[in-house]
């Protein structure tokens, strides 16, 4: 097909054809982004897998040999981080991106450019992590990054800092993505697609992104504090007398346990979909299945201390967390039984996707049973830090991954229009399943091996050798998969719209692959069955033909160009413009963030080292920040039309417009971020002694600057309200003046803060002869970092207000004051945070 012809099937959305590299750099379409996620995640699977094989080679015999000790620790740490962050969730989100909008009946996600931005931040964070290997070695303190091993005293290499910054960038990607998915899934469902009736895969993604929104905010807090300790020299985790070591464990596991379900839920969703499709039965106890998942999602935030049973937490807390842990395991029993009972009286077809899902359930059952062992605290005491834990969580997590590979085979025909080779798919499964069990089951038998050790008792040599053999079989099985999928992509049979009998969800009613606008008409479930409507009032209707049992139809792979074109014309007529699917700025912002963070990694004790390398890092930082600012402005200035309403089902946010909901969701995650910072401060202060704390603070730290700043910020909040009123009254100069006042008050806040800080830095004599610097003690660290984070929010707000002023000068916002309103929400939030910080850091 020539480029022009292909472009014509894309209805001229300004998107280059799929064969051009440029298309993949500028696309914002959810299906393209889904494919990008999937392919990139598979790359990181290979990356993390090779590291695992290096470890398995090392463990062939007990003792050092193949890898040096430090290299082994790096392999252990990087393997864990890459697999958990850069492979597991992104792989699932490849499917989520591709399938969820189709399943819920949305033409795209709510913010297509932010979706592309999530992808590019993800990719560049992964590249940044890769770079860390070449900066004196990457982080070598385990994926749990326990303090204080994670501070430069013990892990001084620049690469370790880069790895932490790569995680920060990854969290940014996740946060943007969570906000986007939550807005889309809550606001943009087709008529009749109520939350209760959403397909189970979409349900698992919805709950996953809710958990992500809050859990990753806690991780972000932990990572920002760690970055500050590493780069600016603050003392949080070095302050072992004040519980810095435990603080990290609390922050990390508050994120870490929900993370287990964040990576497992999408796999559960794939299992539910494939079990239903390939048994030809609807799931048993559907509403209880959903209720169980909601319960797990909520409860996942109150089990984290079961990772800390051997720390100094007391018996009462242990008992409480033992109870919540057992409590959270029970809903999974229900889900497992629901899946098993769905088999009964079905017509079970052992296709590759089903085999992987079935295998995943077997592995998950084994993982679950061995998890009950860990739930018994007395046993946990002995399993802590051993291969029992390693084997258990690999059975659970890689068990989940097994289902995701089922998902890859399940949706491959939809994503590519081509059918994979069924025989090779089954060979892949056989090798995979044998390799998996050969790799991980001997670990249960050799459980007394200490985790992350390469020296282990001689008695376990043969078990570890079995594991190594299994690891290589597991690795080899993927060669079969890559061969199968790439060959099928090139010369595979046409898959048709719906290669699976008894599939139900909307994606199977569409061409493979679906056209850019997804549907041949406005999708609706109003009558209980999917229909596509066109024409005024939806007069023209087309239903969905019944599944024909998997016979690929002759023209199944081709999008129905006519129907699509008519629908696109209608969307254009309704909203007054065509929908856009291309923007170069998400990629550019990702690149800029990468450069800036690479520059930051060279920071030590708040400054760049002198000499060539210091200058190099300083240059990268400066250049990256300038580039970032410029690309952000260009993104904001770009005309881009995303999907607009009216949407079918928007419960419970019918009256909250998409952008507003996005802002609220972002602020919700920001609440957790500040909550974690404030919690860390309280934790450290209590551990140090609440009143003794005053000995760490100089007399010169007085209430007055804080009080002045409180007045300044409160006044600026009123100024924003005035701006909104002016915009509503269409008073251009009133708007400019009140935004200008907001800006001026914000600048005054920062100037006052700068004067205060400079004064404290520059103290002489007394207890703080060298000045009260961020690195002086825990009190100064918490003060500068927490109020500094708030200050950064103020600075970001000032940049936004500058942008608003420039636009308002030109007469913008008079007919549509919503941007001013949303800026106001953010600004009020920043003020409210200050109202918490002021008493905590100036009065108490």
């Amino acid at each position: 097909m020539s480029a022009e012809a292909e472009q014509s099937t894309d209805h001229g959305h300004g998107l280059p054809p799929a064969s051009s590299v440029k298309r993949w750099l500028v696309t914002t379409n959810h299906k393209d982004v889904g494919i990008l996620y999937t392919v990139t995640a598979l790359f990181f699977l290979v990356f993390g897998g090779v590291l695992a094989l290096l470890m398995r080679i090392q463990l062939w015999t007990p003792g050092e040999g193949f890898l040096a000790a430090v290299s082994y620790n790096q392999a252990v740490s990087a393997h864990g981080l890459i697999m958990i962050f850069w492979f597991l969730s992104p792989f699932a989100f490849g499917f989520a991106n591709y399938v969820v909008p189709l399943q819920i009946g949305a033409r795209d996600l709510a913010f297509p450019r932010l979706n592309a931005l999530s992808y590019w931040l993800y990719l560049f964070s992964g590249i940044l992590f890769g770079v860390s290997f070449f900066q004196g070695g990457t982080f070598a303190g385990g994926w749990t990054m326990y303090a204080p091993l994670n501070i430069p005293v013990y892990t001084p290499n620049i690469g370790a800092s880069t790895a932490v910054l790569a995680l920060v960038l990854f969290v940014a990607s996740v946060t943007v993505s969570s906000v986007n998915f939550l807005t889309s899934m809550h606001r943009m469902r087709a008529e009749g697609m109520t939350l209760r009736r959403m397909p189970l895969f979409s349900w698992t993604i919805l709950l996953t992104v809710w958990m992500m929104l809050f859990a990753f905010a806690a991780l972000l807090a932990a990572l920002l504090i760690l970055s500050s300790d590493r780069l600016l020299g603050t003392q949080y985790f070095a302050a072992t007398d004040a519980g810095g070591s435990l603080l990290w464990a609390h922050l990390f596991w508050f994120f870490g346990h929900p993370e287990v379900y964040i990576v497992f839920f999408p796999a559960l969703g794939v299992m539910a979909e494939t079990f239903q499709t390939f048994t030809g039965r609807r799931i048993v106890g559907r509403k209880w299945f959903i209720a169980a998942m909601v319960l797990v999602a909520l409860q996942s935030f109150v089990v984290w201390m079961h990772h800390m049973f051997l720390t100094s937490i007391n018996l009462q807390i242990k008992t409480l967390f033992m109870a919540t842990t057992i409590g959270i395991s029970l809903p999974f029993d229900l889900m497992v039984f629901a899946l098993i009972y769905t088999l009964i009286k079905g017509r079970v077809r052992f296709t590759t996707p089903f085999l992987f899902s079935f295998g995943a359930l077997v592995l998950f059952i084994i993982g679950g049973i061995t998890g009950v062992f860990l739930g018994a605290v007395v046993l946990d005491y002995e399993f802590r830090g051993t291969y029992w834990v390693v084997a258990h969580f690999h059975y659970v997590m890689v068990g989940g991954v097994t289902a995701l590979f089922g998902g890859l085979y399940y949706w491959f025909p939809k994503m590519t229009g081509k059918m994979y080779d069924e025989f090779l798919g089954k060979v892949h499964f056989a090798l995979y399943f044998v390799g998996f069990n050969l790799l991980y089951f001997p670990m249960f038998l050799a459980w007394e091996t200490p985790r992350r050790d390469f020296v282990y008792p001689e008695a376990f040599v043969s078990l570890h050798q079995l594991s190594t053999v299994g690891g290589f079989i597991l690795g080899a099985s993927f060669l079969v998969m890559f061969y199968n999928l790439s060959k099928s992509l090139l010369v595979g049979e046409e898959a048709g719209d719906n290669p699976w009998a008894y599939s139900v969800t909307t994606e199977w009613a569409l061409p493979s692959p679906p056209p850019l606008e997804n549907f041949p008409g406005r999708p609706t479930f109003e009558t209980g069955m999917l229909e596509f409507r066109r024409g005024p009032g939806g007069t023209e209707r087309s239903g969905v033909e019944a599944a024909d049992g998997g016979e690929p139809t002759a023209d199944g792979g081709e999008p129905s160009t006519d129907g699509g074109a008519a629908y696109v014309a209608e969307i254009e007529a309704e909203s007054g413009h065509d929908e856009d699917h291309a923007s170069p700025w998400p990629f550019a912002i990702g690149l800029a963030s990468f450069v800036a963070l690479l520059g930051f990694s060279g920071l030590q004790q708040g400054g760049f080292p002198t000499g060539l390398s210091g200058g190099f890092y300083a240059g990268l930082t400066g250049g990256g920040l300038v580039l970032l600012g410029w690309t952000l402005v260009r993104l904001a200035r770009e005309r881009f039309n995303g999907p607009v309403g009216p949407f079918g089902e928007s419960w419970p946010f019918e009256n909250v417009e998409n952008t507003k909901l996005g802002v609220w969701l972002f602020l919700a995650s920001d609440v957790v971020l500040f909550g974690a910072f404030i919690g860390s401060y309280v934790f450290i202060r209590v551990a140090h002694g609440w009143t003794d704390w005053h000995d760490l603070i100089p007399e010169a730290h007085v209430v007055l600057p804080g009080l002045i700043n409180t007045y300044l910020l409160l006044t600026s909040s009123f100024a924003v309200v005035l701006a909104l009123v002016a915009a509503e009254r269409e008073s251009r100069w009133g708007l400019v003046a009140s935004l200008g006042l907001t800006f001026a008050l914000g600048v005054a806040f920062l100037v006052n803060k700068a004067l205060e800080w400079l004064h404290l830095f520059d103290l002489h004599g007394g207890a703080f002869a060298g000045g009260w610097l961020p690195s002086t003690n825990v009190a100064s660290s918490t003060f500068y970092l927490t109020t500094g984070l708030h200050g950064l929010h103020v600075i970001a707000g000032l940049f936004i207000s500058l942008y608003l002023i420039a636009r308002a000068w030109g007469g913008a916002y008079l007919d549509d004051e919503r941007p001013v309103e949303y800026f106001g929400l953010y600004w009020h939030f920043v003020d409210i945070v200050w109202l918490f910080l002021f008493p905590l850091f100036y009065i108490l």
Partner: protein
Amino acid sequence: MSSGVGASVPVGVLVESVGIPAQSGGGLVPRGSRVEVFQQIFEVFLVLGTLVGVVVVGYMTYNAYKYRDRDDRGDADDGIDAPRVGELPTGSGGGRKLFYSFGLSTILVVSLILWTYGTLLYVEQDPPGDAEEDLEVEVVGYRFGWDFVYPNGHTSETLRVPEGETVHLEVTSDDVFHTFGVPELRVKTDAIPGQRTSTWFVANETGSYEVRCFELCGAGHSYMTADVEVVEPRTFESWYADTSNESETANESNSSARPPEEVVG
């Protein structure tokens, strides 16, 4: 029904399993040295876990095979209620069976955990022996080794303890997060800088055992070991008496260098 089979078997084993600790002393709740306690509970879990795993996986495999799609299958309901593309997702019935299975698994898991909770209370609060007379040793982890500080101030890199007596350990770290563990004696606790954790053990046989670190702590993590020497009580007494003479002079500075820290938890 097959779930009924699953029901009766685990409950039967549960009842039987409660008998195992009863025979080995201490009534329903396993007591004794940490090795004994762990072994009893672990065995019960292993037997039950294997059984439940085999039953559940066997049951699902059996059903997947039994209801496999074949050409010669003539189901009465074929084609009447088959799922169709474009329908809104709904569920099938069978909720009652689901709840029976769920209830059964809940009873099994909760009773197992409650049973071990009794032992947890015993392990945490009521170690055997008279706490007043027991030996208490402070353990300090550092990169990459262990220091053992006796009440008289004697510091050693080997933990020498009397056979058959309860030894209390107060564990902390000088630098990063470590975990102190002696696998063969089933004693383990985190060694956290700035915090103190306590644990205890009884060694019932003389001999030499190995202390290892169970939390990644740096390049030497795999080599962070120390020896535990379990000796006859009389040998221990005479050895300890010797160290107290020497400690008054040589180790005085060493013991006073480490000020007593506040016990947390």
